[in-house]
C-alpha cells in the first residue's frame, strides 16, 4: 500500500514559487491603491444560503450561549460586508474558502479566493480595476464586455430572458436525455447551456466580461431594468474560457436581502437540500448601513493556472483534495 501513497506535491516547486510571487504581486497591487488587507473567520457561525453552493459543516465546541455549530466559509463575503458597514473603507482579503463536492480540473473543495470591496465604485468602475489586476499580472489584452443575453444569443442560439421554458429545454437536448430534463429547472437549463455552449465558445474570444445576468442569478447584486429587462449588476471575467471572478454592484437594501435569503431557502427546499439560517449579524450590518460599493471575488488558483499556461489546478496547488 505504501507504494501508492502519493506524499509529493502535485504542483512543481517552480509553480509553488510562482504562487508565492503572485501573492506578493497582489499585495503590492492593493498597497499601491490604499486598499487595506483584512482577515475574517474561516470558520463561521453561518453557511451560505445559495442553492448551488454547499458549505462544509464543522462541529467546534460552543464558545457561548447561542453560538453553537460552525461552517467553513464558502466566501468571506458576509464578514467583509460587516467590516464595510463598520466603516473600514476599501478592503481586500486573500481567503481560504471551502465548497463541498466541487472537485475537478478547475475545482478543488478548498481554494484561495481574492475578494475585495470598493466603496463608491459602480460595477463598471470595479471591472476596470479587475482588468488592471488580471491583465497586469497575466500580461493579457484588456477584456471586452459582452452581455449575458448577447453571449447566449450568439453561442447558444437562444434568448435567456425571453425564450419559453420549452424552448430552453429543447436547446438542452443536445446534452441531456428527456428523462433527465424533466427534473431540470429553468435555472438548470441556463447553467447547462452556459457550461455546454457559452463557456467553450468564450475560450475563443479572448478575455471577456459577461454582464447583465438574469434577475434569478443576481445572487447579492443589485438589479435594475435595462432594455426593458430586469438585469443584475453582476459580472464575471472569463480568460481562455476559464471563469476567473464574480463581482457585484452590491445589494445594500436589508429587506431585499432578506427576501433573497428566503428565496434561496425555498429553492434549497425544493432541491431537497437543508435550509441554511440567514446570517442575522450580516443582516443587522445592512440595517445599520453598508456603504454603496462594488465587490468581487477572484480565484487565485485559476489565475496562477492561466499565468503558467496549465490546464489543471493540480499543477498550482501543492496538495489538492485527492492528496491532502
Amino acid at each position, binding site marked *: 500500500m505504501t507504494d501508492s501513497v502519493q506524499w509529493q506535491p502535485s504542483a512543481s516547486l517552480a509553480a509553488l514559487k510562482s504562487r508565492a510571487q503572485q501573492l506578493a504581486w497582489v499585495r503590492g497591487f492593493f498597497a499601491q491603491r490604499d486598499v487595506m488587507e483584512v482577515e475574517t473567520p474561516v470558520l463561521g457561525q453561518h453557511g451560505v444560503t*445559495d442553492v*448551488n*453552493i454547499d458549505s462544509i459543516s464543522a462541529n467546534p465546541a460552543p464558545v457561548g450561549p447561542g453560538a453553537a455549530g460552525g461552517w467553513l466559509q464558502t466566501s468571506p463575503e458576509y464578514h467583509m460586508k460587516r467590516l464595510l458597514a463598520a466603516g473600514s473603507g476599501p478592503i481586500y482579503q486573500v481567503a481560504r474558502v471551502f465548497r463541498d*463536492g*466541487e*472537485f*475537478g*480540473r*478547475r*475545482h478543488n473543495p478548498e481554494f484561495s479566493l481574492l475578494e475585495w470591496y470598493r466603496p463608491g465604485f459602480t460595477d463598471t468602475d470595479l471591472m476596470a480595476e479587475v482588468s488592471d489586476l488580471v491583465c497586469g499580472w497575466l500580461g493579457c489584452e484588456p477584456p471586452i464586455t459582452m452581455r449575458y443575453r448577447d453571449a447566449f444569443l450568439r453561442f447558444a442560439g437562444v434568448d435567456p430572458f425571453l425564450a419559453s421554458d420549452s424552448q430552453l429545454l429543447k436547446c438542452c437536448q443536445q*446534452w*441531456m*436525455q428527456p428523462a*433527465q430534463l424533466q*427534473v*431540470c429547472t429553468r*435555472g*438548470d437549463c*441556463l*447553467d*447547462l447551456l*452556459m*457550461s*455546454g455552449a457559452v*463557456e467553450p465558445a468564450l475560450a475563443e474570444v479572448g478575455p471577456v466580461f459577461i454582464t447583465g445576468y438574469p434577475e434569478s*442569478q443576481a*445572487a447579492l447584486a443589485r438589479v435594475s431594468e435595462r432594455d426593458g429587462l430586469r438585469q443584475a449588476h453582476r459580472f*464575471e471575467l472569463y480568460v481562455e474560457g476559464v*471563469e476567473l471572478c*464574480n463581482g457585484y454592484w452590491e445589494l445594500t437594501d436589508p429587506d431585499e436581502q432578506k427576501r433573497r435569503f428566503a428565496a434561496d431557502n425555498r429553492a434549497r427546499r425544493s432541491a431537497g437540500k437543508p435550509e441554511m439560517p440567514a446570517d442575522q449579524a450580516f443582516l443587522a450590518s445592512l440595517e445599520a448601513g453598508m456603504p454603496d460599493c462594488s465587490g468581487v471575488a477572484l480565484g487565485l488558483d485559476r489565475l496562477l493556472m492561466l499565468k503558467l499556461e496549465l490546464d489543471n489546478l493540480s499543477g498550482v496547488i501543492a496538495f489538492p483534495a485527492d492528496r491532502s
Partner: protein
Amino acid sequence: MASYSTNEFRGGLKVLLDGDPCIILENEFVKPGKGQAFNRVKLRNLMTNRQWERTFKSGESLEAADVIDQEMEYLYTDGEFWHFMKTDGSFEQFPADAKAVGDALKWLKEQDVYTVTLYNGAPLTVTPPNFVELEVVDTDPGMKGDTAQGGTKPATLSTGAVVNVPLFITIGEVLKVDTRSGEYVSRVKSS
C-alpha cells in the same frame, strides 16, 4: 444492484446506460459560477464498443452493471464458440461467441490465460494479456548477423497473427509480442 452517484464516477467504473453496460472513460466536473454543477462523462458502450458523451446533473446516479473480469484458460473452439475455463479450480466453462472474442482471436493459444469480461454471467469480451509468446510458423529465410540494420519482414505465428519481425528471426522460434500494438518485442529463449 448498487448504483453510483456522479461523485463516485471514475475511469473504469462499469454502469448501465440506456440498458447497455458501459465503462466510464472520463468524468469532468463543470460548474458555472454560482450555477448548477454538472458532470460531463465519456463512456464506452461495452456492447457496441461505441463511445458516448453524456452530461449529468451532479448528484444523479447510474445503476452499476454486473460486469466482472475473470481470468480464464482458453480450451478449444468448436467453430461456433471459443470455450474458456475458470482458473480457480472450479472447472466452470464459458462459451464465448465470435463477437466476444473479437480481435483477441489472433492471439488465442490453448492453455494460455485470458481476461474474460462477463456481463450478467456471459462472456462479453475477451482480452489477451499484454504480452503473449507464440511460435513462428512461417517467414522468409533468416539472415544471420546483421542485427543492427533494423530491417523487418513479416512472420506468421501459430495463431495466424502476422507481425513484423527482425530479419534474423527463423521458423520455429518463439517470440514475445505486445498484443496492444501487435508489435514484436523479443525472442524467447527456448527452454
